[in-house]
């Protein structure tokens, strides 16, 4: 399936919004029915294109949040105040609306559930979206690959999927979740507020010797910082895969 999904040139197709789910005050998940969609590999994205009545059109890339499934996919979109595409997706789009998209796109920043080795995921803000797809794909495939997610958010109210991550992070599930709060921590939590640091990244069992596959996704500055911390700790730069999103061209 993963291979079939990347074979053939990309063409635009039209999906229909099945459900929208509010995730935070500024982010929502859009569930799309896409006829003929053959699924994706966790980590891949789609391009979404909006066309105005006068013919002006613009497109952005959005990571797929769901586990691979035929005919259906979920995108979680963070609203950008000065965004050209995201405000339409987060504020206007309703169930039943059509949405033009193409994909799945990109085979580099992707995790194949057939890989049994440990996987270290490092997310900054809405960079958790493609990593969530990997966590969900792991569960859907019945994979026992050890997973660890280090998720950096400004404050608890900006976190995506907190309830699901708490559930998937239960002991015995094989997914460890560590939170980093850069501005404010949950009330009563004994967590230090601050940036991602070497101590958080170096959990027992997650040393360079364990040679985990590493996926980092977030804003450019976050990705740079996380990648250099891991390289300095001794991780092989060759196994670190990054996906930065920036002001243009990337994930709006």
């Amino acid at each position, binding site marked *: 399936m993963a*291979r*079939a999904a*990347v*074979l*053939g*040139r*990309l063409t635009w197709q039209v999906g229909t919004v099945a459900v929208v789910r509010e995730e935070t005050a500024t982010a929502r998940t859009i569930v799309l029915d896409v006829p003929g969609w053959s699924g994706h590999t966790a980590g891949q*994205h789609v*391009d979404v294109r909006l066309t105005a009545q006068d013919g002006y059109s613009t*497109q952005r*890339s959005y990571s797929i949040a769901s586990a691979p499934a035929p005919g259906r996919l979920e995108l979680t979109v963070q609203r950008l105040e000065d965004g050209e595409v995201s405000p339409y997706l987060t504020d206007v789009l309703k169930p039943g609306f059509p949405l033009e998209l*193409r994909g799945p*796109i*990109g*085979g*580099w*920043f992707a995790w194949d559930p057939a890989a049994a080795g440990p996987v270290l995921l490092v997310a900054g803000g809405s960079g958790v979206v493609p990593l969530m797809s990997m966590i969900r794909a792991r569960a859907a495939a019945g994979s026992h690959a050890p997973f660890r997610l280090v998720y950096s958010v400004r404050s608890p109210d900006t976190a995506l999927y907190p309830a699901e991550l708490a559930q998937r992070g239960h002991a015995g599930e094989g997914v460890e979740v560590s939170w980093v709060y850069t501005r404010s921590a949950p009330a009563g939590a004994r967590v230090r507020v601050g940036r991602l640091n070497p101590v958080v990244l170096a959990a027992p069992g997650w040393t360079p010797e364990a040679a985990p596959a590493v996926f980092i996704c977030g804003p*450019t500055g976050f990705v740079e910082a996380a990648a250099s911390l891991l390289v300095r700790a001794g991780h092989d730069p060759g196994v670190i*895969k*990054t*996906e*930065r*999103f*920036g*002001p*243009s*061209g*990337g994930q709006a």
Partner: protein
Amino acid sequence: MNTHLDGNVLAGALGEVFAVDITTAVAQCASCGTSQAMGQALVYTDAPGLVARCRTCGEVVLRVTRSPGRTWLDMRGVRCLELHVPGE
């Protein structure tokens, strides 16, 4: 502006013209000879089109520019491109 994204952002524009994924393709840089997956390239989007630079030496590896009905692809920075052929 000096911020860059990753080779992942090339996938859409090049997926329009190539039948196989470009981000897992390994490109040998014409300047320094390093071979790296295109997904590892540094991609600058604040130019006309997308400009991919070598992670090792910083030279331009590939440029792709899109206009209605047309794609321009400048690959003079690639000495050799090794593509994965699915299904084999």
